[in-house]
């Protein structure tokens, strides 16, 4: 590994040919920045992969009808064949976990909503939403679930800053190590 880190220096010395050769097998090539950008669609909780764009809940509400979302998810985000998008009614102070398995309320990160809309919606038209449309639909779903105000504009900067009710209310996955039981003492 250490020798790999020297590669940029070697490249300077060797006139730029060092990077063309991979360390062990030398198979494959370096993707271009454009190739990486085109596929780099998984959105970190930090939002670092989010593209420029903007959208509001009001715009999202129109898009929800225009794009056919209501056909599967119901006119108000509930009652359709597809998973519900609206949290359960509950007393104030209820554990947000109890508000239902609804992505725009249960996920600890608002970026998950953007990510999934962008990669997988609408059914049959996956990948066709523009960045602005995804920001708007995300804003709409966060607004109807009471996470953001109606006039909040969602952008690459504001979306990762949205504090979801479960942000600290979930169990991180275990620190997995090879050759270890999943949960010592369970249940034997």
């Amino acid at each position, binding site marked *: 590994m250490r020798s790999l880190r020297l590669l940029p220096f070697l490249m300077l010395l060797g006139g730029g040919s060092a990077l063309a050769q991979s360390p062990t097998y030398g198979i494959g090539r370096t993707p271009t920045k454009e190739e990486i950008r085109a596929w780099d669609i998984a959105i970190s909780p930090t939002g670092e992969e989010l593209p420029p764009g903007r959208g509001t809940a009001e715009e999202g509400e129109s898009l929800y009808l225009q794009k056919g979302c209501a056909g599967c998810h119901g006119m108000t985000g509930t009652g359709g064949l597809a998973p519900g998008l609206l949290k359960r009614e509950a007393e104030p102070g209820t554990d947000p976990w109890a508000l239902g398995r609804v992505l725009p309320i249960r996920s600890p990160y608002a970026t998950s909503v953007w990510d999934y809309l962008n*990669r997988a919606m609408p059914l049959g038209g996956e990948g066709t939403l523009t960045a602005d449309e995804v920001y708007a639909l995300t804003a709409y779903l966060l607004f109807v679930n009471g996470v953001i105000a109606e006039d909040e504009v969602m952008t690459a900067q504001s979306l990762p800053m949205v504090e979801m009710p479960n942000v600290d209310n979930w169990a991180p996955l275990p620190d*997995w190590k090879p050759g270890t039981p999943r949960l010592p003492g*369970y249940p034997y």
Partner: protein
Amino acid sequence: MDSKQPDRRVFLKRGAALAGGLTLGAVEPVSRPAPASGQSVEGQSQEAQDYSSEELIAYGERSRFVTSKRIPHPRGGRPSPDEFGLVFHVAAPLQDSVGVITPSALHYIGTTRGSYVPDIDPAEHRLMIHGLVDRPLIFTMDELKRFPSVTRLHFIECAGNRSNPRQETVQETHGMTSCAEWTGVLLSTLLEEAGVQDGGNWIVAEGVEEVKGASSLPMAKAMDDILVAYAMNGEAIRPQQGFPLRLVVPGFEGILSVKWLRRVKVVDRFYMTYNDYGHLRQDPDDAALGYQIGPKSVITFPSGGQQLPGRGFFEVSGLAWSGGGAVSRVEVSTDGGQSWMDAEIQGTAHRMAHTRFSFNWTWDGQEAELLSRCTDELGQVQPTRAQVREFWNVPPDQRFSVKGQDNSIQPWRIASDGSVHNAIS
């Protein structure tokens, strides 16, 4: 899937076949399957499948008398394909299984959300490794096949593989697991080629299908034994299983074995993709059961819906597996768990692979309850549902679902008439 197209079925006159095609060393025509009509008189016209057609000599198919097939999961769930052509979950016919390999055509299918099975041209397919690496890389399929390869037996099991009292057969209770021989490159080989940087503690693996199913995985697993597989059971991976390229994440929940793989990004944290979100838990103990599958086994014969012809000798047979490594012991009980006896492990128990066990049993014609219990190389023991209930302090009268991957013991009740029933409660 039904391959018995009418145009492939031919009417053969045995005499004509004898006269026309037989050469020295050819198989005696009397071995041809008896026709359904029962007509077997020499020279008489009979309906038979022509397994010696040019097409079937080039790529064979099973006998038309073998009808074992996959079914939608769960029982009564959405059909695959549905009215839009989407494929959901489809379970393997474990009641018909022998040995440890699931034939590729019968391997269970799971998809993210429901997907169309993509038709990918391998010449156009690429795998990209990027993110927190010294050197992002992109590979063609031909390039991936130049790397040192490994071939390993591994099961893949869906997290939805759980038994409930409404299910009747082992296909319904346990059919969302399958085992195949996988060939490919270790992901660690590719990651080392790219050079993982400090802080690269996770990967996000992503498919190219229209849903672009993506999951976060810990770097410790990626560097341990994850396969980037291009072959399955001695041939290219089938489209339903991720052609031309998929991850095989040994012993972890099936959804993590990303199909139609096109991208692995090295990242600094759990990304909470939609697939990750689906496995989100509130309780740390519950979350701890989420990745690695526990020790598990099930008797496939006799199993629910089957019928014993009468008292006498039977070889009880089943499958055992664990996400924690190799199966080290399988026990069988024929009295509902009051007493246990060691079953025989057939062949070599491979790590994170289905392992066939058998137990010689003479049924006395009395009602019996058959159970199997798996212990793995880590000493983990498969629990009963009662033990799981006790661990989580669930009162006896309260309905509950086993947390994490359900690896609880499956009981089959043999009624005195020889019929076999799901005895889970």
